[in-house]
């Protein structure tokens, strides 16, 4: 059932019998797969005894969907097939696309700046914007570790949690303000990054991934079980809201609205939070781009491409890896403390493996190392995720399916190439097919 080459397809024509047979096989497989899981529903009855009832209608519907879907997929594959996109798109369109590609980043940035102005009355869109920007920031932060240094980190959410909990604890126990806690949270998270980095220096690839996953789980389990410090599963509540450098955004006399002599509106705080996370995200982006041009950034990229050659060139791989972990973790810490102050309440439920996977998916979908790609991927993923808010039950199911399909469709991410940071005479775009990954 391998994809047919165009010539083989032309020679064969549309083979209805073949497609029908394939769909039939898929339907039979689906029937067996779903027979017990969909066809029978179990539930604990009133006396605690398990009871079951049959749902053959649902089962039949699922099998029919698979049968129909299989035919549709085959037909699409037949009509679309593997096309040579480069030859099909005329040069004029390609030029236009190139210009559009160059323009997209500034246009997106300007639009983002204007979002609170345009959608001032739509609280929902502002909240969504804050959420997307949080993930953009997390994506850019993880990009330092995965995209630049090639270290596959599945426990990124641990640093996010460290940031959130350090802000929550410092603010509720010692009454420190957001602006003092923010750098502290970043430093603490970076410290945790080094803490994780040290033991895993020798590991590579999948092993590194699984150890970071275990680390993330350990952090979460400790948060759940260390009740006296973290409040356990109940989390920490009434976390102070951020102030605009000491001036609270409240309706009171000392609030910002009163001082400026304007009417108070709760939207002010949302707008403030929006610009705050935008500033943090842009800081992450700026630092990443600056670092990439510095020796340390180039060392990261060299490490990603070939660790052995890297060592042969006299690059200290230990410090290189540790700085990558620490930098990425620091940004996660910033994002975490922003998350805590935005929510006003945090609990271990917000820091599950699911979040790590989501951020990693954003980075990979964005195209490993492409800043614009990560931003677009965050917009797509979080926006798409939001569309399913009404179907809470099916959200993660659809997310999982989307992840699989996206990987099959574009394993290299949305933006498949990027410009090199340092080049000799001419800048050639680097196709991401040439970028090795996770070997460091």
């Amino acid at each position, binding site marked *: 059932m391998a994809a047919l080459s165009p010539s083989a397809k032309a020679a064969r024509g549309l083979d209805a019998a073949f497609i029908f047979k394939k769909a039939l096989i898929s339907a039979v497989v689906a029937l067996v*797969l779903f027979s017990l899981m969909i066809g029978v529903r179990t539930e604990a009855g009133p006396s605690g005894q398990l009871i079951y009832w049959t749902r053959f209608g649902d089962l039949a519907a699922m099998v029919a969907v698979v049968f129909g879907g299989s035919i549709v997929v085959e037909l699409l594959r037949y009509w679309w097939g593997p096309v040579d996109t480069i030859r099909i798109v005329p040069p004029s369109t390609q030029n236009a696309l190139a210009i559009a590609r160059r323009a997209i980043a500034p246009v997106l940035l300007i639009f983002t700046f204007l979002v609170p102005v345009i959608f001032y009355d739509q609280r929902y869109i502002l909240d969504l914007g804050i959420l997307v920007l949080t993930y953009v920031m997390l994506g850019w932060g993880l990009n330092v570790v995965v995209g630049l240094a090639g270290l596959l980190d599945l426990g990124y959410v641990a640093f996010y949690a460290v940031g959130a909990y350090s802000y929550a604890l410092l603010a509720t126990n010692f009454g420190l303000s957001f602006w003092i806690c923010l750098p502290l949270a970043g430093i603490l998270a970076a410290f945790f990054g080094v803490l994780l980095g040290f033991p895993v220096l020798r590991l590579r690839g*999948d092993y590194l991934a699984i150890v970071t996953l275990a680390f993330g789980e350990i952090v979460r*389990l400790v948060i759940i079980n260390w009740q006296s410090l973290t409040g356990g599963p109940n989390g920490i509540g009434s976390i102070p809201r951020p102030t605009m450098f000491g001036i609270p955004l409240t309706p009171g006399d000392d609030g910002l609205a009163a001082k400026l002599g304007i009417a108070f509106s709760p939207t002010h705080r949302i707008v403030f939070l929006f610009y705050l996370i935008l500033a943090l995200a842009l800081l992450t982006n700026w630092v990443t781009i600056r670092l990439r041009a510095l020796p340390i950034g180039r060392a990261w990229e060299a490490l990603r491409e070939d660790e052995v050659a890297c060592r042969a060139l006299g690059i200290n791989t230990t410090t290189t890896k540790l700085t990558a972990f620490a930098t990425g973790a620091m940004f996660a810490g910033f994002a975490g403390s922003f998350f805590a102050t935005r929510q006003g309440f945090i609990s271990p439920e917000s820091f599950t493996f*699911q979040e790590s996977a989501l951020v990693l998916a954003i980075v990979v979908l964005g195209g490993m190392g492409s800043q614009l790609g990560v931003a677009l991927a965050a917009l797509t993923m979080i926006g798409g995720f939001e569309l399913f808010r009404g179907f809470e039950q099916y959200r993660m199911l659809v997310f999982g399916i989307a992840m699989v399909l996206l990987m099959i469709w574009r394993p290299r991410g949305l933006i498949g190439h990027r410009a090199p940071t340092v080049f000799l005479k001419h800048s050639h775009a680097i196709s991401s097919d040439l970028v090795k990954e996770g070997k460091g």
Partner: protein
Amino acid sequence: MDYFAQQLINGIVLGSIYGLIAIGYTMVYGIVGMINFAHGDIFMIGGFIALISFLILVSIGLTVVPVILLIVLLVSMAITALYGWTIERIAYRPLRHSFRLAPMLSAIGMSFVLTNYSQVAQGARVKPVPPIITGGYTLHESGDGFVVRLSNVQIIVVITTVVLLGIFTWLVAKTRLGRDMRACEQDQTMASLLGVDVDRTISMTFVIGAALAAVAGMMYLLYYGLVDFFMGFVAGIKAFTAAVLGGIGSLPGAMLGGLLIGLIETLWAAYFSTEYKDVAAFSILIVVLIFLPTGLLGRPEVEKV
């Protein structure tokens, strides 16, 4: 001492279950070189299928327990194996020659799909079943009344594991399929040049791994008397830890690692704290990878330049 002996028995039983799951990780990693993240969820699906087929068999009036167990085992293995086959076909085969992160993310996506699929299909609540096999033997009774017991369920779990492990070892060592698997593990291109159907061999690897995970799922159901949609994640990481501890790619290693993880976890819970038993298991993973990156029975990895 008696308490320790009892915990030892419990640990070995839990370890057998982990070992059965770990074999699936080890085989797939050995041949395809990827961590099959969805494997823990396949174990969970196996448990669900066992539960549902058991309910149906009981309600149609079957009463002979060994017959029920045998049918449940076969049904669960067959359907779960088909899950393994389908997942490989849909989510991994198209990415066989893609860049290395892609199959891993696809596997993570597949894991979400399976978890939430069973949540949507069967509900989020824990499904308990009454004990199917009761009875057991008293091995030793100490003066203060503490009894070391070996229950029939425990015996069945361990015996099933040992028998299946025997069949499986024979399969890998003596049959054509096993030879193909070992050939693919060495060098896929070379194996295909020499007439080994690589795609089919990889499919079969997933099928066997899933079937063994289904057995583990059924044993879990028998032993703990419950399944729920989320149990695959933690069991999956622990079984993976077992595979790594034993040396990934090594089949006896996976079993040994499973036993060790089961023992450590049980003893930790018995002597230190129940809350931190998972932390202990994950910490072992980190410690093992630092000091013994190739595991207890693994081959040293050659660094290619």
